[in-house]
């Protein structure tokens, strides 16, 4: 690991001030020379791998006193960005009103990692693409812009089939962000000039021609909270993976339904493990709305979810797997007693 200076922020303004040093460097946030440290489960790992090379690390954990509350007021949800995954997953109100959130958190990582990792850091976790994580590969546009993408012709079994470009096919590895995007969540971002709120769907950027730019966050900005309107008791997160536990998704689905008298009034579908960003599947949602739920509808929705899939040599199986995950998750959500 390269040497770095450690600073411990005492409150949000001191954290923002320290992180703002990176704002003048004109780099993407992911390449910034000053990085915030929360749970550290991505940052310290990638620093050991020499993938991330900050010169200064700003410890923002003291901000947790102000930024880790779980609030369900007026039927709306506010999750502090420094809440730990494990604490949110076991919250009875979250389990009751937002099972998709509780399950996405519970099915991620290991108990130790969930005790450490924060919600904000979780949403910003970096891809597990082995060509990104291993600096001995020269070609990675995300790590070294313009160098090429070793995954295109490499071993790309775990790579994305949706939202890819000829510059990058790295999968967004998380689970929680899919639950959030399915629920139309917003993200509150705190920076130098105060807080701004954007839809979570505007946070992550598909790779396009600049895979090194992963989010719309500016250097010097921190995620301070996530906001969800309304309650979604009929919601599920289904995750298919190589092992039963402690593994990233090969394909996952976050589903939220509002069903009245057997008819789908509102539907939310998001996909994980198959896309370069947390993936909202709006066409499938439109197919569901106003329809009576049955297996034939579930199959049509699943087909539509992967209509734009672009497969590579080793990852074509994700389309068939992903469709089955979507169909099963829809059935599970429809059958829930709420």
């Amino acid at each position: 690991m390269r040497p770095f200076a450690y600073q411990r922020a005492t409150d949000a303004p001191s954290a923002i001030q320290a992180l703002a040093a990176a704002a003048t460097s004109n780099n993407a946030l992911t390449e910034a020379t000053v990085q915030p440290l929360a749970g550290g489960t991505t940052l310290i790992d990638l620093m050991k791998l020499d993938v991330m090379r900050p010169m200064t690390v700003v410890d923002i954990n003291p901000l947790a006193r102000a930024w880790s509350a779980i609030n369900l007021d007026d039927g709306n949800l506010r999750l502090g960005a420094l809440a730990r995954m494990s604490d949110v997953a076991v919250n009875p109100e979250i389990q009751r009103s937002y099972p998709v959130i509780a399950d996405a958190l519970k099915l991620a990582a290991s108990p130790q990692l969930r005790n450490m990792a924060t919600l904000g850091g979780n949403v910003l976790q970096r891809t597990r693409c082995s060509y990104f994580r291993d600096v001995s590969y020269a070609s990675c546009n995300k790590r070294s812009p313009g160098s090429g993408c070793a995954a295109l012709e490499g071993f790309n079994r775990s790579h994305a089939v949706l939202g890819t470009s000829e510059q990058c096919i790295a999968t967004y590895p998380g689970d929680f962000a899919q639950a959030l995007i399915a629920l139309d969540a917003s993200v509150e971002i705190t920076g130098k000039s105060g807080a701004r709120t954007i839809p979570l769907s505007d946070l992550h950027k598909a790779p396009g021609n600049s895979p090194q730019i992963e989010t719309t966050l500016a250097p010097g900005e921190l995620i301070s909270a996530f906001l969800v309107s309304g309650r979604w008791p009929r919601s599920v997160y289904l995750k298919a993976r190589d092992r039963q536990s402690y593994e990233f998704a090969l394909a996952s689905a976050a589903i939220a339904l509002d069903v009245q008298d057997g008819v789908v009034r509102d539907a939310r579908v998001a996909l994980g493990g198959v896309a370069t960003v947390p993936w909202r599947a709006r066409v499938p949602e439109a197919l569901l709305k106003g329809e009576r739920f049955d297996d034939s509808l579930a199959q049509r929705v699943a087909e539509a979810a992967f209509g734009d899939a672009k497969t590579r040599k080793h990852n074509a199986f994700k389309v068939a797997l992903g469709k089955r995950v979507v169909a099963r998750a829809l059935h599970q959500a429809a059958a829930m007693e709420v």
Partner: protein
Amino acid sequence: MTNDTNSPTISGFNRRTFITGAAGAAAAPFAARVAGAAGDPRVLPDASLPVDVTLHVNGADKPLTIDTRTTVLDALREHIGLSGSKKGCDHGQCGACTVLIEGRRVLSCLTLALAAQGQQITTIEGLAGGNGLHPMQQAFIDQDAFQCGYCTPGQIMSAVACVREGHANSDEDIREYMSGNICRCAAYPNIVAAVKQAAPAILSDQQKG
């Protein structure tokens, strides 16, 4: 690893004394001061200087002078002399380094020592809190829950937390909530048995405590 090179005996000149003189009030918002005024990227801090930190380990204060890169795991093993916590993958994947910080199981290999300031760290050496064995340690012996033993300290720390978190209600539950601890000897069935054996004593202690 390259970050264990600073001896805890280095004294006299350290970052804190250096910075107090060099940076003055500019770094005041920060508990650990660094060279260079916060917010000015042109003044690069000298990250090669060691820093002073006190860790609270198994009930005792441990004042250290360390490189900023030092993890809690390296601080325990290389600076404090507590080698019970093991370094397996050093990337947060295997669980061999599991310790309790403020009573929560975490991976010491991904936790910076500087970030653990002011928090209570419990390692396998401090688990029993005396000369005897903790019920979970005894259960691992009784159930033959290890072969080579390398993962065992992490397994035991994780198992204690698993029980306290209320996740030892069934074999399936135990397997799911012990999945962050890899055992390459595959003693898994015996580990599940050990967790089940020790759970009642730990839960009863928790109720008393």
